[in-house]
């Protein structure tokens, strides 16, 4: 346990002492803020049109602006996460390997899982910290909109994005542990994440069981329910198994370093 904490502290220090955390978070927030504005303007325009129509035809407006904004915003966050998560994990292990510091960690009285979990939790925390400022957008919306947004929607949305990020971070960490080369780690992670994102399009026209499997593997498919305010246990199972599976693979990969010629 102390080992996990020591690694966690070191990783967080690494992120925040160097400019990595600030630059990645800064770029992330600029993009998120820009699109939030765009979505807001778009939806408000739609709402105005709907209101005018309802005045003409005498129907009450059925347009829940905050809910639509939130849903689109979380959809967008998912896409940005696809780009951000590989960046966060590029150097996780590949840098330790190329600099030889992995030898320090592996000859210290640490268990492999302490190294792997410490690193995974640190990256996940950084991702969480990056998301925090976007809560301000929701607060602003809460204070100014009518009807008020549903807190439940906000909660499930952030839960979903954390799980999505966690899954991508687990994949990225594993790939980073396979190579000393950071460019390879980044490219492969990004490629795999992208495939998992769009895989459900490939499964669309397949009506056999393979199609079901392919659709199930889509990392985005399981995220959509969260943006609608639904917590489905099957989605939780999907993300937790994804994380557990890749954390386990990372453990095996670290252990296998001992058996390879380092």
């Amino acid at each position, binding site marked *: 346990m*102390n*080992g996990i*904490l*020591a*690694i966690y*502290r*070191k990783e967080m*220090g*690494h992120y925040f*002492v*160097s400019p990595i955390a600030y630059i990645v978070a800064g770029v992330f927030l600029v993009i998120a803020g820009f699109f939030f504005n765009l979505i807001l303007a778009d939806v408000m325009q739609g709402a105005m049109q709907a209101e005018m129509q309802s005045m003409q035809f005498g129907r009450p407006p059925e347009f829940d602006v905050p809910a639509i904004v939130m849903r689109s915003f979380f959809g967008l966050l998912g896409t940005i996460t696809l780009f951000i998560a590989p960046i966060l994990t590029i150097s996780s292990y590949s840098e330790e390997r190329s*600099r*030889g*510091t*992995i*030898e*320090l*960690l*592996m*000859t*210290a*009285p*640490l*268990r492999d899982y302490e190294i792997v979990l410490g690193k995974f939790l640190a990256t996940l925390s950084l991702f969480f910290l990056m998301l925090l400022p976007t809560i301000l957008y929701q607060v602003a919306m809460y204070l100014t909109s009518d009807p008020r947004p549903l807190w439940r929607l906000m909660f499930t949305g952030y839960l979903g994005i954390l799980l999505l990020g966690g899954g991508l971070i687990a994949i990225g960490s594993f790939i980073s542990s396979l190579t000393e080369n950071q460019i390879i780690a980044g490219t492969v992670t990004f490629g795999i994440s992208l495939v998992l994102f769009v895989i459900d399009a490939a499964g669309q026209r397949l009506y056999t069981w393979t199609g079901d499997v392919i659709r199930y593997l889509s990392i985005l498919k399981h995220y959509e329910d969260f943006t609608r305010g639904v917590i489905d246990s099957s989605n939780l199972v999907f993300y937790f198994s994804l994380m557990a599976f890749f954390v386990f693979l990372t453990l095996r990969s670290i252990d296998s370093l*001992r*058996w390879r*010629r*380092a």
Partner: protein
Amino acid sequence: MIDVEGLTKAFGANRAVDNLTFRVAKGEILGFLGPNGAGKTTTMRILTGFLPATSGTARVAGFDVQENSLDARRHIGYLPETPPVYTNMTVRAYLDFVARIKAVPSAERGKRVDAAIGMTNLGEKRGELIKRLSKGYRQRVGLAQALVHNPDVIILDEPTVGLDPKQIIEVRHLIKGLAGSHTIILSTHILPEVSMTCDRVVIINKGKIAAVDTPQNLTGQLRGAERVLLQVRAAAGGGAALKQLLDAVDGVKNVAVDALDSNGRFRAQVESASGRDLRSKLAARVVAAGHDLEELRSVSLSLEDIFLQLTTEEPSTAGGATSAGKEDAR
């Protein structure tokens, strides 16, 4: 303290370490000497639990490095070939981190970090980022890292590489000071380092142990024969006469004569049984025969020659030839 038996590590068909057996007593400094690629680093990596052995056992402080790896690792301080430092940490933060992962109790942590900084003379650099430090200082940070949890066993892979002469002396001094309370293994291909710091030497070549002994004994054992080198301007008869003359001296086992130039200058290498000093006899004989004796000295083998003798393919003649070759170069 360290007990290695039949240790073998194979990478595919290549045996990097082949059936190594040695022991290191508590408080001893053992030098690991061998050419590059001899298996020094691999052996150290097995001892520190970084690599598993293919067969054989290694015990450190009573713990098998494979069966009880964590217990063994707790007793080891290890400096790999390149100091494993995080360059964007300060010296102090880095050592604090290492103390944490080496399970130093939090109450002692500050004290241990300060002690490690003190021992390696890093006091004025403690707040500096490691990336701003020179190679020599980084090496010292690496050394401090190996000492921070006050381990019983310290394993140092080429600890003086990249240091300037003054720093080398400091580090050797530090290592000597650690002996007694700590058991130390250090590897090097710098020979004087071994004779200066180590109690015992393991010479390792192609994964096998070529010799184990004290530096003094190794020198003595290999000397087996005494060698005397003469430089002579021959009066008459040239080299053949000179060789005959020297061969006739009582106690001489072997004589080799080479012409140095066309003015009748020769160099003779005379080998005798060990323990017999023939210098005065040889001098008297040469002078009596009317030759000019320009130089006469006994040649003792340095550890370097021994190292070459033990690690080159050819038997002892190669060592002799090499040492003669070196004499020429001077």
